[in-house]
């Protein structure tokens, strides 16, 4: 019925979207000045991706 609403996202796309949305939310909630918000969002996004990819690689030896 609502097949048009279904999203097929890869692992990387899902992680990127998740990290971006949460970083934006944290940036807006925790900082007041626009420049501080941008810095916080970029830094938070970078750490999200770094830790996400890092954990992915750490699990790689146990994938099978």
């Amino acid at each position, binding site marked *: 019925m609502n097949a048009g609403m279904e999203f097929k996202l890869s692992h990387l796309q*899902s992680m990127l979207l998740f990290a971006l949305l949460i970083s934006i*939310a944290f940036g807006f909630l925790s900082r007041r000045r626009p420049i501080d918000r941008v810095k916080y969002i970029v830094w938070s996004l970078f750490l999200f991706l770094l830790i996400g990819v890092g954990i992915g690689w750490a699990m790689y030896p146990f994938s099978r």
Partner: protein
Amino acid sequence: MAEETAVEAVPPQDSKRETIAFFIGVAGWLVPGLGHALLKMWGRAVMCLVTVGLLVILGAGMRGNVFSSSGNDAFDTLGFLADLGTGTFYLGARALETNGADVSHAGGDYGTRFLATAGVLNLLAALHAYEAARGRKA
């Protein structure tokens, strides 16, 4: 001694402020962003509405699990509480997901996390609005 008693007494305007702050917190929970909008924090209000809304739409679109109150175990109950954090958007998620959840694929699992995160994020935003309404630094 009399001075100490006067300091400890809660002034009526503080009590009123607490009540208003409570209702702002509840409004922020029911409709993401409404709490901040009532405080005229427009940037944060729009951010809450957009991020929570997108997470719910993506989560439901990826066929994540929208937990109901009739959970079988503690994890289902915790999931329901997290999903309920989105307020009225919880009903939207249920309405969007007419085909039901499909967690047999990674997409469905991601969708479940998106929905739970949307709820927890909205609760955080509602608490932030509550604290701001109380006069705390926000």
